[in-house]
């Protein structure tokens, strides 16, 4: 084998690594139909525990009234439901809103105020959890966000899984619920169907859950006590931390897709970036903190009570965690091959994007059918999730010569050799170029009058690459040791339920 051959093999392996997350995403979607037969509903039953709802609130006056009102209208026995609003030393009208509701619903809504706030969500939650655990009344504890609107049947559908003593915690499907969603909110709405309605069903099937959604975490009292009676305050992903601890303790975590709650999500790239950097940094911390968990029992299906160490779960986790690395490797591999062995580059490009087309069509159609309400709002954002640029590249891979010859021919144009070379290199490196362009989307949005150009650019670049870029940014911030201060996402009360 010559040095040239070795180099070609190395570059092909790089391309292959880039395909792994695409295949992992497809595998996850292929597990979704298995949920039709392998779900936890068979073990669910009539169980109506006494539930304490803990609502952390820092300057949530705009959203709290509606969410508390909806909690009071839950189809749940009123004498079995108490709400503790933990006011994290708010400076707006949050105390007035809560006190008015507490007066309206005496004994059912309790206002707890921290004298000094600003330490973050986990500290705020712990203040409420200490109160909830202080007496024996509470049998289950629901953690939610102040802006989340619970549908009347949602809590009832969650608690039924706690009838099974093996279940430690249950989470619901958080749907983006803004009354007049903008482009970014619509993209998030679609993303939530992929990340929750689809991915968490697959995780139910695997028997390992990545994360209890922060706005809908229901814990059995026994589980809460077993994980230490406190929420972790040392990472930015307190919900994921608790999810892992629950499963490592041998208790199951169940996703209930029929329990739907509505949340307000960011409607600007800048706000999205801030929120997701926090999430991604949290995932970096979790990956390190639980480094002893990954792939330890890759093929086990039973025993030790959890499947976090399985190959399937680890594969899915790291496919998302290392997505920016994989995308970069794919592009580097293709560009390298272009200069070393153009024929191999063409074959690798066509093969890689062939798989991408299959995954894209299957995942998009499945997602749009999984949640029709979101599909009606976000069908365009679903179709353009990878970006117009990626769709152009997919066509280039499938129809050789389409953009270099056929389309220019329609207009009587002919591209120069240099033009074709440049276009080929853009196609080969698109996964990296799109990530870099994500920074441009954010920069343009910050300019005066930049909102609409930024949205147009977002459709070209795609929402997926923007999320990839944010993850990359989070790696960098974590690497640089940036502060882990809680950075709250602004909520304005746009949710209509």
């Amino acid at each position, binding site marked *: 084998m010559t040095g040239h051959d070795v180099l070609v093999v190395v570059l092909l392996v790089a391309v292959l690594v880039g395909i792994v997350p695409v295949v992992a995403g497809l595998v996850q*979607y*292929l597990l*979704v*139909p298995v*949920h*039709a*037969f392998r*779900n936890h*509903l*068979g073990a*669910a*039953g*009539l169980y*109506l525990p006494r539930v304490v709802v803990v609502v952390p609130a820092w300057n949530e006056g705009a959203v709290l009234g509606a969410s508390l009102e909806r909690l009071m209208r839950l*189809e*749940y*026995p009123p004498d079995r439901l108490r709400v503790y609003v933990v006011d994290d030393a708010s400076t707006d009208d949050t105390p007035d809103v809560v006190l008015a509701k507490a007066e309206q619903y005496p004994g059912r809504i309790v206002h707890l105020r921290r004298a000094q706030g600003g330490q973050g969500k986990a500290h705020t939650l712990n203040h409420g959890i200490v109160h909830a655990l202080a007496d024996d009344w509470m049998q289950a504890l629901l953690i939610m966000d102040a802006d989340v609107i619970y549908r*009347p*049947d949602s809590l*009832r*559908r969650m608690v*039924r899984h706690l009838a099974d003593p093996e279940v430690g915690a249950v989470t619901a499907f958080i749907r983006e619920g803004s009354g007049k969603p903008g482009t970014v909110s619509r993209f998030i709405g679609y993303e939530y169907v992929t990340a929750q309605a689809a991915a968490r*069903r697959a995780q139910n099937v695997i028997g390992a859950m990545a994360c209890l959604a922060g706005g809908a975490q229901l814990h059995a009292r026994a589980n809460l006590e077993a994980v230490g009676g406190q929420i972790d305050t040392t990472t930015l992903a307190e919900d994921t931390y608790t999810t892992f601890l629950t499963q490592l303790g041998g208790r199951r975590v169940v996703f209930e*897709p*029929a329990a739907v709650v509505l949340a307000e999500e960011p409607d600007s790239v800048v706000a999205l970036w801030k929120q997701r950097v926090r999430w991604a940094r949290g995932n970096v911390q979790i990956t390190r903190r639980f480094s002893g968990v990954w792939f330890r029992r890759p093929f086990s299906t039973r025993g030790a009570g959890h499947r976090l160490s399985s190959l399937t779960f680890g594969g899915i986790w790291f496919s998302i965690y290392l997505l920016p690395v994989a995308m970069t490797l794919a592009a580097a591999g293709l560009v390298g091959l272009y200069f070393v062995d153009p024929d191999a580059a063409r074959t690798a490009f066509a093969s890689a994007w062939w798989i991408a*087309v*299959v995954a894209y*069509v*299957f*995942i998009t*159609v*499945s997602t749009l*059918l*999984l949640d029709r309400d979101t599909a009606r709002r976000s069908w365009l954002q679903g179709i353009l999730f990878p970006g117009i640029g990626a769709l152009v590249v997919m*066509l280039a891979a*499938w*129809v*050789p010569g389409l953009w270099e010859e056929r389309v220019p021919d329609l207009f009587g144009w002919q591209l120069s050799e240099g033009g074709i070379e440049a276009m080929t290199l853009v196609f080969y490196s698109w996964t990296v170029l799109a990530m870099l362009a994500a920074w441009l989307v954010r920069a343009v949005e910050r300019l005066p009058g930049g909102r609409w150009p930024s949205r147009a650019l977002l459709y070209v670049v795609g929402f997926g690459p923007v999320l990839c870029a944010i993850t990359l940014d989070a790696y960098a911030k974590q690497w640089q040791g940036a502060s882990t201060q809680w950075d709250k996402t602004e909520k304005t009360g746009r949710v209509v339920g």
Partner: protein
Amino acid sequence: MVDDVPDPCSDDEVRAEIRANARAERALVGIFLVAAAATAAVLVLLGLGS
């Protein structure tokens, strides 16, 4: 006159809801079949175009 509204938290209603949700989950198989068919159709179309 007020109609009798069944208590959604009664034993019968909870069990009926669990059964209904389990039936609804079976629609996932149909979704899979439609998505698989759509994927095959797109592959054929792209194959014809190339």
